[in-house]
């Protein structure tokens, strides 16, 4: 009976409505946070930073964003790459036009700009539903990428359309540019992710979140109990785009440092992977967003490590296998647990609750 909730009585709605109603969860989460904030920074090296942790954090953020839209509000979107691009280029423009603006502000403003763009591209969702909408969102993807590739103003008329970040300090430590120490970039992303993560969770467990889910589950009934579809859907698009925009900003400024829009925000490099994250992680689950991101970010690296470094296959054969296994795993996952890792986790919790008595 490791995972025992009996005997934990809630005396107030407040405690009952808490994010982690169970003491075990509180402890687990607390330790995780302590570890993430106080332990990791001292051991992180540039490989873990650039290859695993920072991309993980950034994509978690994008996944949360998409999950708000798709998982909670039921609007499937394939335009993630385009919106991340908006975030990235806003950051670049603001950075270059206001050299001494604080990076944190820059990132958040980029998020707001993306939110505005998101609202515009969300408008069709009123008439278009389901797959038609999903494919329609590709329009935003292709259009935005084209725009940033085509209009020189966005990349300050540089010779090639490449945009490169310049160094910015956060509390006196560089968090962008090549000289930024791993722990700094990591912590910078971590802070943003944790704060925004809680914000998202709070929205989901209050009015706005319930309106989204109402629209998702049955938009007609929702309308009849007084949920305005337009406002609700657009709010989902806006807030989701904000998250995606921020992640795009970090992706450019903190993670890659130099971006070529056509390649870095391609639907195959961003839009689909992020959709995988929320599906494998679990539609409509905060935990799922993180699990999914972790899975998608680490899997290829893990497979590569096993096949090249341990088994010693040649890089190319390994890659072929990687692609195959990767797709195969995806299918297996969807067959075994369509509701994603989050569901698996809650099942394990059930098991733990009964442990050691099986049933």
């Amino acid at each position, binding site marked *: 009976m490791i995972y025992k909730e009996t005997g934990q009585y809630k005396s107030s709605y407040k405690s009952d409505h808490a994010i982690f109603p169970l003491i075990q969860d509180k402890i687990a989460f607390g330790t995780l946070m302590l570890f993430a904030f106080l332990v990791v920074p001292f051991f992180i090296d540039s490989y873990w930073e650039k290859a695993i942790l920072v991309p993980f954090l950034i994509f978690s953020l994008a996944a949360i964003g998409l999950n708000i839209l798709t998982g909670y509000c039921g609007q*499937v979107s394939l335009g993630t790459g385009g919106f991340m691009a908006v975030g990235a280029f806003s950051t670049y423009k603001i950075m270059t036009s206001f050299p001494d603006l604080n990076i944190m502000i820059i990132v958040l403003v980029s998020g707001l700009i993306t939110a505005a763009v998101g609202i515009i591209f969300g408008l*069709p969702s009123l*008439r*278009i*539903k*389901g*797959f*038609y909408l*999903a*494919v*329609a969102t*590709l*329009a935003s*993807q*292709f*259009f935005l*990428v*084209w725009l940033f590739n*085509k209009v020189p103003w966005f990349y300050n008329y540089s010779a090639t359309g490449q945009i490169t970040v310049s160094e910015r300090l956060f509390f006196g430590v560089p968090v962008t540019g090549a000289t930024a120490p791993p722990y700094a970039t990591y912590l910078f992303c971590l802070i943003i992710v944790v704060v925004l993560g809680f914000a998202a969770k709070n929205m989901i467990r209050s009015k706005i979140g319930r309106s989204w889910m109402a629209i998702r589950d049955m938009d*007609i*009934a929702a309308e*009849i109990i007084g949920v305005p579809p337009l406002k609700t859907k657009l709010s989902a698009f806006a807030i989701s785009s904000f998250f995606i925009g921020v992640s795009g900003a970090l992706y450019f400024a903190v993670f890659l440092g130099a971006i070529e829009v056509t390649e870095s925000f391609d*639907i195959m490099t961003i839009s*689909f992977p992020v*959709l*995988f994250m929320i*599906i494998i992680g679990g*539609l409509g689950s905060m935990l799922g967003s993180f699990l999914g991101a972790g899975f998608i970010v680490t899997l290829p690296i893990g497979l590569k490590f096993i096949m090249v470094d341990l088994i010693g*296959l*040649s890089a*190319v*054969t390994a890659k*072929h*296998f*990687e*692609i*195959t*296994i*990767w*797709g*195969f*795993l*995806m*299918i297996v996952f*969807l*067959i075994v647990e*369509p509701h994603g890792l989050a569901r698996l986790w809650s099942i394990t919790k059930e098991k733990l609750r009964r442990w050691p008595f099986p049933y």
Partner: protein
Amino acid sequence: MSVDLLNFIETVLNGLMSGVMYSLVALGFVLIFKASGVFNFAQGVFALFAALTLVGYQTGQVPFAHLINELFGTNYHHWYASMPNFLAIILTMITMIALAWIIERLVLKHLVNQDPIILFMATIGLAFVLEGIGDLMWGSDVKVLDVGIPSGGSEWLEQATIGLASEGSDYYGMYIDVLNIWATVIAVILVISLAIFSQYTKTGRALRAVADDHQAALSVGISLRSIWVLVWGISGFIAMVAGIMWGTESGVQFSLSLIALKALPVLILGGFTSIPGAIIGGLMIGVGEKLAEIYIGGYFETGALENWFAYVMALVFLLFRPQGLFGDKIIERV
């Protein structure tokens, strides 16, 4: 006729031709969606896989040669010099049908009545698997595909049209790639034979029944799963045709799988469930994007707006008909 008019016509014609190429891909999507409600993103990779296999058979490549050689230090590459196209095509068809059967066994069977989005994701997974296996089997370097379809500009048309221009203009005739004309012919034959098949054969009727209503079909004793194998087989075959067409134009290599992205706007324009929709949608997209590229594209000194234009066009269209051109009407009740 003025040269501008002739140019316009030329553009439209070429648009129609590319449209046919898109329709070829879209067709496979629609068939599968109708019959099994799966939005099969793997259709593009189907085309790639089919083309790879075809070339493999033609040139007698040893499947998995790289892998075998790497693991066992052997040095196999080819086991025969060449194979007649006809035979190779037949073999490829058989392979694609076998593939369909395997997919039904290993994937679809286990995913019946899941959410559409889940099925969609599964097919993306499938796309990865096929791409990986394709690479492992036949290697990832570019291959020249030639099944004897002529290509290059059509002399005849050029000569025929050169006179149409008004006097004194230096008009030099219209341009159409012969390959595309062939593609059109083949596509037409394909569609007609499909229509005949679904109208006048028992399996065809069963197929339409399933497309219409799964439960009902089941209740009159039609085996869903055999129908699915059939349908996936057919769209595998269509993918092969598409693969041959695109492969002849650009050589067979990974990028071939990206034609799926070209087919998506066609689908939303035409409606996921309508074969005529796929065809007409394809033509509309083809013409639309070519016209846009050549006539609007000029205004941004360098165009390349085809890609997004196709989607935006489809999007705008959807705003007026949310279910696409021929898609089933969406009715909301409580």
